[in-house]
């Protein structure tokens, strides 16, 4: 057991999976000699060589397309896209190819690929480097979408993703890459895709969130009145998401606040809220609340913290919902 950051936990998972399976290889911009733009792949080039940690030029369509071809050819590629905004050029390959081959080939050709993508705001970067596009990929049948909120979960979820028989978009929240450490077992372990985590148990109100917002929610809960018992759920997987855990919780509490960084309209919170009204309607004590990013282009760093849901906004949303 060691106390690791999220970056270190991911790095460890990559090393262990590459050691365990020759079919696993990494490709992307500066992933090799330079160790990745966020240094997530640091040391892997030296350890596994240029054939398994492949430096590519800045060419996202070529990276994603090649990775899909590698997967078709029987390997388990892990392409890295440097920032979520750079997924644009790779979008065609990911959604029109990777997501559809299992269906198009009646299951004979599958894409066991894990696309690693740093995501979200909070690091004083501009738009294209701070966005939260998870709903776009969750809306693409054939893809799985994962976003951890802690070093422990990051390692376990990444190992699950690499071993998964289908393509997984693995979003890594940049804001918490190095913001805190957590005890992470040295041995390999998995955290199942599709299973949410109840971060804190409670009985009065349910908060559903994912990614770096989980940390903001924990902070918000510290300043709530002591007699308000809040259950905090980190989805961990955006698709296929853990409806059962959320429904069970909201049926218990009757109130729900959903928190995410992405713009509110058509964000994944809209899907969660809809399922809650479908399945918890008779138990609801209050309208489902959303505390989310605004429907605007991700602002430059001077206004970034106004955009991102913080503990104060989340706390206000919780109190309003609780008082209804």
């Amino acid at each position, binding site marked *: 057991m060691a106390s690791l950051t999220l970056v270190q936990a991911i790095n460890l998972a990559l090393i262990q999976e590459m050691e365990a399976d*020759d079919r696993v290889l990494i490709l992307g911009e500066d992933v090799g000699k330079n160790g990745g733009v966020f240094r997530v792949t640091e040391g892997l080039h030296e350890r596994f060589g240029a054939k398994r940690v492949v430096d*590519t030029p800045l060419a996202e369509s070529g990276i994603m397309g090649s990775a*899909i071809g590698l997967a*078709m050819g029987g390997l388990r590629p892990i392409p890295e896209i440097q920032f979520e905004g750079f997924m644009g050029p790779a979008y*065609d390959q990911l959604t*029109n190819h990777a997501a559809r081959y299992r269906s198009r080939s009646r299951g004979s050709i599958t894409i066991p690929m894990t696309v690693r993508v740093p995501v979200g705001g909070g690091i004083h970067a501009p738009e294209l480097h701070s966005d939260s596009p998870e709903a776009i990929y969750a809306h693409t049948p054939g893809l799985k979408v994962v976003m951890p909120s802690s070093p422990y979960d990051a390692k376990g979820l990444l190992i699950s993703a690499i071993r998964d028989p289908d393509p997984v978009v693995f979003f890594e929240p940049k804001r918490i890459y190095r913001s805190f450490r957590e005890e992470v077992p040295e041995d390999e372990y998995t955290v199942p895709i599709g299973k949410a985590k109840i971060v804190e148990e409670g009985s009065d109100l349910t908060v559903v969130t994912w990614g770096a917002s989980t940390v903001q929610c924990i902070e918000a809960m510290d300043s709530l009145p002591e007699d308000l018992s809040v259950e905090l759920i980190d989805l961990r997987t955006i698709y*296929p998401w853990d409806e059962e855990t959320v429904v069970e919780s909201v049926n218990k509490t009757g109130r729900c606040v959903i928190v995410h960084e992405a713009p509110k309209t058509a964000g994944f919170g809209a899907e969660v809220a809809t399922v809650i009204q479908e399945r918890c309607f008779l138990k609801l004590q209050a309208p489902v609340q959303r505390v989310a990013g605004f429907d605007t282009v991700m602002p430059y760093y001077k206004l970034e913290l106004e955009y991102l849901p913080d503990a104060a906004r989340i706390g206000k949303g919780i109190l309003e919902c609780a008082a209804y």
Partner: protein
Amino acid sequence: MGATQTQVPPADSLSAKLPDETLVGWLKDMILIREFELRTMAAYQQAKIGGFCHVYIGQEPVVVGTFAALQHADPIVTAYRDHGHALARGMHPNACMAEMYGKLPGCAKGKGGSMHMFDKPNNLFGGHGIVGAQTPLGLGLAFAARYENEVIGEAINYNQDAPAKRVALVFLGDGAMNQGAFHEALNLSNLPGQLRSPIIFIVENNKYSMGTSIDRGTTMAHDMKVKADAYGIDYLETEAFDITRLYDDFKPFADACREEQKPGFVNLHCYRYQGHSMSDPQKYREKTEVEEYQGNDAIDNLTHHLVNERKALTEDDVKTIRKDAKDVSKEAQKFAEEAPEPSIEGELYSDVYANIQPNLSPMDHYRHGSTNALLED
């Protein structure tokens, strides 16, 4: 132009040294594709095939001639005009036709359709509907083949008797020259020490991307070699009108790409006799142009060579070959018409993920809320 224009292959050429039965096999394969596609057109016109449909008539020698220079374990990807690739790679005509009919015994249970022929046992990794987007996929397959040989050291995905050194083929239309993914893949394919891979980009240069002639859509169309030169990739220019010449040009080129595990670029002149798809008014070309190319038809030319020069076949033999191909195509259509339809329970939500996800099912509570337990009370 006409059959008499074709040159007898020089006695020392590769194809001249091949036995008669090999060349007769090429003729049979080309005629089968021709007859199959005529059936396809008829079925489409009768509204028995849905979606879109792009037939390969005129381009048959491209796949037959290039595949003859390959190993079965060499992976292949292509674009959406893919029925010929599937048949030439060994897909059963019944499976190919049933796929276009959207029927269960199709090569992809009727889920892919005309543009998406997949045949993993024959190492055909799909027809693809986005122009040029299949190029990096082929690069990945080529790199995987090299990786398998150099890093893993044993076959993981192909027949155990596959050659250690394989080469991947990507077939593209000339319209793909104008797409970004194509250029990214060419650049990646020749990066020393990185993704440099045994891949051959075969441009099926039939002169038109849909209704846009290559001169109107592609800069430097008169000198395509510059596109390969830009990436330092070996270039071959050849044509499909005489399949023996195509083979003679392509075989040593492909062998070198395999042996040296390097990329290659082939500008392969050919011509499609039919429209881009089945609903193409063909305002972009004169009928006389089509007729001129039809007068230099690869099937006619090879027939002439085998009957008059090699004397490997008689006219009656050729008639029999054509009749057999017609019969096989007719049988394929009959098979497709009688084949079972895909079921909602079996096919609507299967094969999206390895494991069915709960809300993919039309049978559960997501069906417009009609089976929502809350509404049943």
